[in-house]
């Protein structure tokens, strides 16, 4: 995963899994969004991943992609992403102890 990793979309399934769709490199053309995804088995695992408690090798890079997206709240070129950010994604980012 390149340092330019861009998070396209995050989905949570009814079964509790989290799918993080991402694209390496510059902003993708619409037709290549959602090409690659990482599947987390639960929101807890994703949250630990984001919060940095789970610092395995790749975490730092995807975390670098996720944190600015969450904290800085950049302008998103796909309005659907705002829905995921506010309505879905923030639901898994907490500060409570594990």
């Amino acid at each position, binding site marked *: 995963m390149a340092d330019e990793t861009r998070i396209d979309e995050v989905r949570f399934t009814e079964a509790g*899994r989290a*799918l993080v769709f991402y694209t390496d490199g510059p902003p993708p053309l619409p037709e290549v969004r959602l*090409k*690659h*995804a*990482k*599947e987390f088995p639960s929101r807890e695992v994703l949250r630990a991943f984001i919060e940095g*408690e789970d610092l*395995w*090798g790749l975490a730092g890079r995807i975390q670098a992609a996720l944190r600015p997206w969450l904290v800085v709240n950049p302008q998103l070129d796909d309005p659907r992403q705002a829905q995921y950010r506010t309505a879905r994604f923030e639901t898994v980012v907490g500060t409570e102890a594990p």
Partner: protein
Amino acid sequence: MTALRLMTGQGIELVGNSSPVIELTTFDNIADRIGTVFALPDDITITHVWIRYGARVTGTTPVQYKTGLQGVDGSGLPNGTYLGGGSPASGTFTPPASTAWDATGQWIALDNSYAGTRGEMMSHIVEPVGDPATGPNTSSFARDIDIARRNGQAIPYSLTKDGAAAWTKNGTDLPIYGVANGSPATSSATAVFGYPIVTANTSANFSTAAEAGGQLTMPDICDTFKISGIYFQGRVLGALAKTAAIHIYNDASTPVSQQSKTGLDSDWCASPNSTHRLHEMYFTTLAALSPGTPYNIVVSPQDAAQNCTLSYIDVAYAQDMMALPFGTGFVWTERASGGATAFTAIATRRPMLDLIISDITEPVGGGAGGGAHIIGGTVVR
């Protein structure tokens, strides 16, 4: 004492601060492909191949797909020709227009079986038959497991092909795939190879008298054996002087501890709340254990709110375990409280727990060849 450390999650190394994550590729072009190049471990007539579906990404009605076995060209890429000549080793399937297949492993029957030979290099392919760009009706499929700090995969390896582009090899992650004679989905498999792993996860916290670990039934290849230690990935919360223990119980309705080691306190090596730490622990007095008898080898919290965890991998069907070391003879086990509470085994779950086995005695009457036979024979494969 000669000790053997037998990995129970072959290829899924125990790694501290790690959560293996499934990697998916979405098929949004009729020329998209995913594949795995691997060496066949034994002579086997392959009748089924395994795919791990992700989900419907766009649209509701997935297109038809083809999967099967191809040869490998001189560059290590699938050669584009299904094995079997005029009787190609391939089969088709159509994911359902529902969530029923989401995050599941599926064994797909080949239209024609293929007699593979030990050591043969081949590739397993998934490709669309219908055009997923129509609609669009795209689906994702898992290709590998991203494992912390692994970063050095040679064979087997996964590949992806994005539309008209050339194949791209993945030299980092562990491919997930499977080939079988017979179908584990119907408990009719006689051989299963590969890594048919559906997901990897970490258990919920367990505390006080709850216990979790692995249930081992050693194949009948020795007279007795001993387990001198275990190596596991999980958390043993050490706050406030809390400690845990490790035990080996028999599998009775009122389990009896055969051996143990108490006083495991992760304060020694890690801060409280740390996740996914590695623990190499040894028992004090070793019992002579018998093959063919199930034993529960577990982590045992000693206090309330101690919040131990143990990492694990899941497969779809019990016979999928045949692809892993110890086969169906090593599965997840747990119980909610101690005393007269029996352990419950989960046949499709494998703890991230390695066994350090020692003092293996030859079978009475000789013949099986002792420890060396274990390394090269039934236990490992």
